[in-house]
């Protein structure tokens, strides 16, 4: 009985029932508006794609003149960078080596400290202190690179010359130390994120088997988070390789590969410093100008490659956690 009443009661409402999505014939304006709006938003979002494509296109375009006239092999394998000589030589090996040298040396300092600090923040310390320490580390990241360069030239270089007795204070060691400090916040925050994301079960299982905290961290946590940590290190590398102001001021700009390769107290020159230093004085459109853009292309390629690597490791880390 009530069932039928209900049906009758429902019917008038059902007759007035309309689906929420209106067909174009019913609300043309709304249809166009929402789809047009979406299309506009889509194109605006594609601005970042546009930006990346433009960057690659324009930098490669300006480098084109050099790449077609001069031998790429010489560019990559010779060390003589004499762009303004009577017969210009564009051997960028010393520059590429300089960038790599300084970056790897900086990792030498920053990776151990960074991972230890990340472990400290994620495992060893309570939430309250963590909330206190994390801003301090973010503060390190906020300091502009010019300030670091300032410190490197006016404080660290004289210190190296006077107290450590180096013949020159602006050298690879100086640049590496400062780059290490600059890469630390990146390494710490990404590594700490991956280590924290592991969750408690893994650690509790290890503790329940009788391991101490150190053994848990070294034996379980770090191996489990290894993809994330590698990604963190790679991101730190990207930061170090792309840094300009600090190396321009602190590395001495001698376009050489240090003679005993482990002698870090010698002066080197990086790709970024070459571009920053030489660009102001080159005639636009000359070979030197294109050569500098080619160095820029090298930089782009290297950072792009590092980006892909870090992306790969980050997705692996996410997959390992089952997300």
């Amino acid at each position, binding site marked *: 009985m009530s069932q039928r009443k209900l049906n009758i009661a429902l019917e008038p409402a059902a007759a007035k029932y309309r689906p929420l999505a209106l067909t174009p014939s019913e609300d043309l304006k709304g249809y166009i508006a929402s789809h047009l709006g979406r299309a506009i938003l889509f194109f605006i979002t594609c601005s970042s794609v546009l930006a990346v494509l433009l960057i690659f296109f324009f930098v490669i375009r300006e480098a084109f003149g050099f790449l077609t006239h001069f031998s790429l092999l010489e560019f990559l394998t010779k060390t003589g960078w004499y762009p303004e000589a009577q017969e210009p030589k564009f051997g960028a090996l*010393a520059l590429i080596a300089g960038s790599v040298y300084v970056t790897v040396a900086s990792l030498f300092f920053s990776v151990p400290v960074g991972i230890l600090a990340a472990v400290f923040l994620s495992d060893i310390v309570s939430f309250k202190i963590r909330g206190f320490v994390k801003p301090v580390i973010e503060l390190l990241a906020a300091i502009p690179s010019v300030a670091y360069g300032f410190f490197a030239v006016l404080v660290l270089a004289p210190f190296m010359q006077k107290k450590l007795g180096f013949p020159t204070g602006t050298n690879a060691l100086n640049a590496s130390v400062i780059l290490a400090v600059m890469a630390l916040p990146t390494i710490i925050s990404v590594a700490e994120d991956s280590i924290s994301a592991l969750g408690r079960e893994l650690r509790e299982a290890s503790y329940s088997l009788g391991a101490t905290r150190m053994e848990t961290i070294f034996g379980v946590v770090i191996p489990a988070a290894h993809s994330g940590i590698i990604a963190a290190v790679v991101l730190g590398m990207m930061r170090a390789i792309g840094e300009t102001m600090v190396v321009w001021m602190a590395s001495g700009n001698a376009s050489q590969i240090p003679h005993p390769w482990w002698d870090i107290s010698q002066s080197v020159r990086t790709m970024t410093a070459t571009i920053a230093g030489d660009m*102001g*004085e080159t*005639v636009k459109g000359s070979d030197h100008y294109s050569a500098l853009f080619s160095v820029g292309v090298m930089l782009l390629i290297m950072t792009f490659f590092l980006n892909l690597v870090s992306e790969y490791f980050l997705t692996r880390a996410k997959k390992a956690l089952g997300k």
Partner: protein
Amino acid sequence: MRKIIYCLTAIMLLAGSSVSAETLQLEGSTTVGPIADAFAEYFKSIYPDLQITVKKTGSGDGAAALVDGRCDIANMSRFMKAKEFEKAVTNGIFPVAHVVAMDGVCVVVHPSNPVKKLTKAQVRDIYMGKVRNWSQVGGANMPIVVVSRDTSSGTYETFHGLVMEKKEMAPHVEYVNANPQAHARVRTTRGAIGYVGLGFVDSSVKALEIDGIMPSRKTIASGVYPVTRPLYMFTNGYPKLGSMIHKFCTFYLTERGQELVEEKGFVPLTNY
């Protein structure tokens, strides 16, 4: 937050209506820079409405700026190269050189260095990397820290031409971008050797005798010092008489101008 953005946008849009004041743009050599600065300061005291900008990034940059039409006067411590002339003519710019002073490129070391003189050949060997320790040229047992100007500097060109005799420098040579930087490096590094214009030699660095001749006003003016060069200001064509550029470019001919040149440590052209 929004209000701040609105206010600033309004200010910027208002600022978009530019006020026209006479401007004079100089770019180029860090050696000639101090002379241009001194002239500019003097001019500003006579013509307070005049806005003078002096950019000091290197002779090559000055030439590039003049060729592109971005500056009125290019300060250069070397003559324009053939390539620069060609580009200028293609752009419709006809560079005219004005020699405002004479300069000598002085080889300097730290004051604590016992070495007082070197021959040109010795300096060349140091910069080519054949000599790596001060003891090989009569100094203390210290490695030599070789400092050079970057390759688009006019000072570098002069040094490269007259001392290096166009030979390449060794790869371990450190490069700095400007005269003051070279001066600072030599002043703070005990084993350093570098070269700067005469105007940058003061009591905190020691100039060496080259081939037995000490760089000074007298030896440079008479041409006896081997590494001498004129300092140029280039303009586009000869500046119109009575224009500000003309006044600036002929200021060095007046006694006051020559005094300023001498005050800055360079060698004035005339015995005013």
